């Protein structure tokens, strides 16, 4: 079964500083990878996704992520953080087997990284 590890529970950065959130996955084949963001009191919103092709993917709100197969990683980055980026970020991996069997595109989520932004 696939799994996702987000090693950082909390991260604090200053506004304007760069950001990198780590995500490592365990999956036998080429994974489908996602980053979601959850603002306080809200549901999750998709930031970006990777299925194949270019390993550097661009998302909304100025975020990008790079898929590195050799490191089993899919880290999220932003060059300059804004105060409105304070939220919880979840990495997720999709179950390719379920996709092929048409039994539901199930996701396995990491435990999340809570980002705080200093003024």
């Amino acid at each position, binding site marked *: 079964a696939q799994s996702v590890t987000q090693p950082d*529970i909390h991260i604090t950065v200053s506004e304007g500083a760069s950001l990198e959130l780590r995500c490592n996955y365990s999956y036998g084949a080429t994974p489908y990878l996602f980053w979601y963001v959850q603002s306080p009191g809200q*549901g*999750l919103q998709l930031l970006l996704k990777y*299925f194949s092709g270019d390993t550097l993917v661009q998302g909304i709100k100025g975020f990008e992520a790079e898929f590195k197969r050799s490191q089993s990683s899919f880290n999220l980055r932003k060059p300059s953080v804004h105060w409105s980026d304070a939220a919880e970020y979840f990495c997720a991996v999709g179950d*390719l087997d379920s*996709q092929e069997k048409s039994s*539901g*595109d199930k*996701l396995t989520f990491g435990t999340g990284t809570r980002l705080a932004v200093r003024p």
Partner: protein
Amino acid sequence: NAGVTQTPKFRILKIGQSMTLQCTQDMNHNYMYWYRQDPGMGLKLIYYSVGAGITDKGEVPNGYNVSRSTTEDFPLRLELAAPSQTSVYFCASSYIGLYNEQFFGPGTRLTVL
């Protein structure tokens, strides 16, 4: 276009009580999901449905039931509430296939005392 809506937003139950969490989507999505989110644990899949009349268990189905009589609605039923079911519950939906993102509702915060 309201997306995914959930009711209620908050609820407090006593041990042994029952309740239904409502979820409705207006995007004509075939796939719908119920997750629970516990602090520090991420989201765990409870049940999912690939279309009206079809449901299946996720990772943590015990203590819950679902039904899917229409494309739009996917209610989650708690029959005998237990403190372990205190959590935030999210409903989500997507088009067919993993290529499509899951759209999440705002969540229901449930406390069982």
